[in-house]
């Protein structure tokens, strides 16, 4: 039992971050906070990938003499791409928030909603 909890601590971290981020996305009305939540959510996935690529006592996957165990580099490469995607999403999201702020004078979801309704 303890093994399951401690031995898979990376998963617990991932799950915690994932839920925290997802909850933030769903529950917060503030557009910036939503994006922050989204980032946490995505980061948890990055962690998931990186931690599953780790081979215990492995080194960086560069061929050199004397090293035979090394971590799986593929998840890293994938996550590098995913991070770039995440950064682009964040940048785009924030840019939209700036524009929304300019157009509506607010970044609170309910206030924006009220303004649209009153039209």
């Amino acid at each position, binding site marked *: 039992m303890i093994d399951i909890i401690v031995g898979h601590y990376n998963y617990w971290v991932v799950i915690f971050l994932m839920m925290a981020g997802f909850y933030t996305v769903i529950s917060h009305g503030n557009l910036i906070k939503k994006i922050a939540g989204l980032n946490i959510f995505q980061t948890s996935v990055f962690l998931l990938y990186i931690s599953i690529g780790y081979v215990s006592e492995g080194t960086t996957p560069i061929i050199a003499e004397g090293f035979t165990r090394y971590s799986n580099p593929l*998840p890293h490469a994938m996550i590098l791409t995913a991070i770039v995607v995440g950064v*682009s999403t964040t940048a785009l999201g924030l840019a939209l928030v700036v524009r929304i702020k300019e157009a509506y004078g607010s970044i609170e979801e309910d206030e924006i909603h009220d303004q649209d309704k009153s039209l």
Partner: protein
Amino acid sequence: MIEQNLSLLLVVIPLLSAPVTAMLPNGRMPWLLTLTASWTCLLIAGWQLSVVIDGNVISYELGGWAPPWGIEYRIDAMNAFVALIVSAIAAITLPYALLSVEKEIPRQQTSLFYATFLLCLVGLLGIAQTGDVFNLFVFLEISSLSSYVLIAMGEQRRALTSAYQYLIMGSVGATFLLIGIGLVYVETGTLNMVDLNQRLHPILDHQTVHTGFAFIVVGIALKLALFPLHLWLPNAYKYSPSVISVFLAATATKVAVYIMLRMVFGVFSNDFVRITPTDHMFLLLGVFGVILASVAAIYQTDVKRLLAYSSIAQVSYMVLGMGLASVLGITATLVHVFNHALMKGALFMACGALVYRVGSSRFEKLDGLGRQMPWTFTAIFITGLSLVGIPGTAGFISKWYFVLAALEHQSWLIALVILLGSLLAVVYMWKIVEVMFFRPVPDSAQSVKEAPVSLLVPMWVLVIANIYFGFNTELTVNVADSAARLLGVAAYHE
């Protein structure tokens, strides 16, 4: 040398054109380049389909790395079909885009607009071509990110909130997909679709595989606007620039349907769908989606929103087809992917023409416009018939196969729901017809003229295609059937 690389060029040509377009001065040059690129893509996609239509498979190894280690572009009939749809719609949309974009997009943004459009095309074509799940995720994000940008370029400020909403939901969906891919990768150590299918086969009962599958399906369902995850779609279609409504409505959800098919049946398998409640889930969501989205469409007061809800309903048909999980069901789904692209393309083009002339697609602005803009109106009318599934139109063919598949499955209820959905489509399409044709023309609209020819011609190309593919289904049905069989073969592999 060129021939062996053509499949890849399909993705690389728009990819190369995008930065060049972004560097061009604003005006008509970016449009011209985009047009050229998309027509080239169409030619290549046509060639590609002609190669694989008989069941051949094109395999292209990126960087010369053999699969399953390297990224493989693996094109069978289904891939080529989807690629053809995407590039054909792009090629038809672009002549339409010229005037519409000049009207709706500020001049200083045109080159960026077209560059983003090309990136979106890269993403969609990439999804269609690739045989690697992670690569698919990347292309999905390329297309999604660019479509967020394109939607946000709409004239009204609500375009921004719509794009934001889509961005949040889309990113959550993509991340779900990423989690799913990660979990499956943990279990199998591969990302190549064919390889995944083989390696997953012995371990289909593993819990991790099931979890991964659930994440993948939910992730794609978000992109697919599968009921009840459709909330982003109506606003996104409504507030985006007309051209983008056309392009996204005709391609984006279709490509998502393709991803769903490829992942669920190609990577996992028909067996997996059967041993899990996936098929029932699809059927259930499909039934609710068809009925509720159609009913919602009836209550809309804006043509674009109405059509958007109709899209959700139509996507639900495709999900029903998947839920039937038979060759006939998948054939129906694929045929409908094609036909629905034709319908929604034409309908949104007509909407764009209305917006071009009266500046809005709300019902109260359209009173009596049918007489002022007869060509646009007739286009809406004929395509509406196709949407309903009147014989002699493409829509009838898809409806035919859906009901046939349902009957084969002995699901009377599903068959009835499909037909009932057509009935609801009659109601909402008729609303548009009545507004446009039978209401008196207000004085303010007396001077409204027919849309310019460059908008009408692409629209009518699609309208005629709607009729043509209602009579000649050699292309659609054959390809869909062969694609469905290939999927089935993959499913029962060894």
